[in-house]
């Protein structure tokens, strides 16, 4: 028994309940459709970082399978970022051809994008600025009526967020609420080097979120890659509306090993190895400045986990594709290396982290598959899994509200 585990978060948040959670929301197609309608098509979603498109004319295309669309994010000559459906107004081809990866990048000096099909050209405000053989279109055709279809876009701490609703229920800053105040000031932009891993998983998106949403699994799942992190605990639980955060503490780090120690002495870039350089955290992150603090996990509702540490930060995002498929994206961010040996040391840390993520993702499809048996109708959560309970409540509230709306419409 780990004596440092904190007693009863649940007693502090009785509104979250203590009963087992139903399995139904992880499996049912109708529940999934309601999640998409009431959450993913209504809420602000993070789709990138400003560092990914730093210069005027830089663009990124992000697939959003749940909405059967892809989004063009393009930086204009004025520096502003525009977001548009990647659909040409001519006959609906994709304006930017995707490379097959989940994220496609490009750049155009004139800050315009041109459809490869017939050469229609749009500027960074979405305006149609070029139509070959325009005179051959009938008089009713107007450029002004055929801009790219815009998507609401805003940024927070360098995160590019979009909202697919025609009229968002609230602005991004209001949506983020206390989460924004909590993480504002964390120097995300000073650690721009991103190491991305992604995979398509045959499981519900919430199974993935849940697997990363607690540290109860660390001594078992990470016995391979993080054998030193068995004496852990969680604390600093906070809720900001539908968003949430919790911190991870560990009494010990990984045991020193020859290559691990060599890497760590050059550049401290691993969550499992001690970092000694002082690091400026916002006041509310590790508020007691506890020496065993490892990192904090914040969840930007609904699908984005942001982990902040000292000298590193990382994110996980689960994109729904159907009730039994999702895309997982893990990103690990570090300060740009100054030397080749620093580059080497970072790659060691990223490799170990990749392996830990392979351990994390190992359970997700098995969990979904096993739940599909129908053998169990409920799952049991302990105290350290309070983030999962909060997530269930937040999602279920939206789905139920949609049900109520539908009832009202029929009444």
């Amino acid at each position, binding site marked *: 028994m780990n004596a440092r585990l904190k007693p009863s978060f649940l007693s502090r948040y009785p509104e979250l309940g203590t009963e087992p959670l139903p399995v139904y929301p992880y499996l049912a197609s109708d529940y999934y459709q309601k999640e998409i309608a009431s959450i993913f098509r209504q809420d602000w979603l993070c789709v990138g970082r400003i560092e990914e498109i730093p210069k005027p004319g830089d663009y990124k295309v992000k697939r959003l399978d749940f909405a059967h669309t892809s989004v063009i994010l393009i930086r204009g000559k004025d520096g502003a970022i525009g977001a548009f459906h990647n659909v040409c107004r001519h006959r609906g081809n994709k304006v930017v051809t995707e490379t097959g*990866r989940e994220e496609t*990048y490009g750049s155009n000096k004139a800050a315009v994008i041109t459809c490869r099909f017939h050469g229609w050209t749009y500027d960074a405000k979405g305006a149609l600025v070029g139509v070959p053989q325009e005179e051959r279109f009938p008089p009713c055709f107007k450029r002004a009526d055929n801009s790219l279809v815009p998507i609401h876009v805003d940024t927070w701490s360098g995160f590019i967020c979009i909202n697919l609703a025609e009229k968002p229920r609230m602005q991004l800053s209001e949506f983020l609420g206390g989460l924004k105040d909590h993480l504002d000031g964390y120097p995300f932009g000073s650690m721009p*080097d*991103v*190491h*991305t*891993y*992604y*995979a*398509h998983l045959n499981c519900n998106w919430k199974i993935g979120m849940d697997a990363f949403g607690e540290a109860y699994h660390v001594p078992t*799942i990470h016995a*391979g*890659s993080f*054998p030193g992190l068995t004496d852990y605990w969680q604390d600093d639980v906070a809720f900001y509306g539908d968003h949430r955060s919790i911190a991870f503490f560990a009494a010990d780090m990984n045991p020193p*090993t*020859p*290559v*691990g120690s*060599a*890497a760590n002495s*050059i550049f401290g870039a691993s969550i499992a190895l001690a970092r000694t350089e002082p690091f400026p955290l916002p006041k509310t992150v590790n508020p007691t400045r506890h020496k065993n603090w490892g990192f904090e996990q914040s969840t930007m509702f609904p699908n984005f986990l942001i982990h902040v540490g000292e000298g590193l930060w990382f994110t996980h995002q689960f994109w729904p594709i159907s009730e039994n498929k999702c895309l997982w994206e893990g990103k690990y961010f570090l300060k740009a*290396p*100054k*030397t*080749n*040996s*620093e*580059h*080497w040391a970072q*790659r*060691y840390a*990223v*490799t*170990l982290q*990749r*392996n830990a993520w*392979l*351990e*994390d*993702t*190992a359970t*997700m499809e098995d969990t979904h598959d096993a739940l599909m048996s129908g053998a169990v109708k409920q799952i049991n959560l302990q105290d350290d899994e309070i983030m999962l309970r909060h997530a269930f409540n937040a999602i279920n509230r939206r789905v139920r509200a949609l049900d109520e709306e539908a009832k009202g419409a029929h009444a």
Partner: protein
Amino acid sequence: MSITLPGGFEDLQPFADRWALATEYERAAERRRSSPADIKAFYDVGLRCLPQILKRADQYPLGQISGVDSSLFHLALSLAEVAPHVEFYDCDPRVPFAFREERLVGVHCGTAD
């Protein structure tokens, strides 16, 4: 033998053709193809040479290592790839109890290296 290492690295020479690989994708694939004994043998020699390799690498500006030193640096990156397997996984060529690695796609700072 196609890759020749600089003088002083004769011990690493037998590993050069297999492990001097430019991308993480290739290094991980080579590791999965290897036997536990292969991994341990490369690790032991690689670890011994690591300080010298990094010293030579740092004579070049970041990302501009060229010629034979580039092969040496790729060997160091392969050492980083196999190190957890020797130091934590009992020389298992795969990450034990893990998601199928081949299904994972990696992109680093916009490249596959």
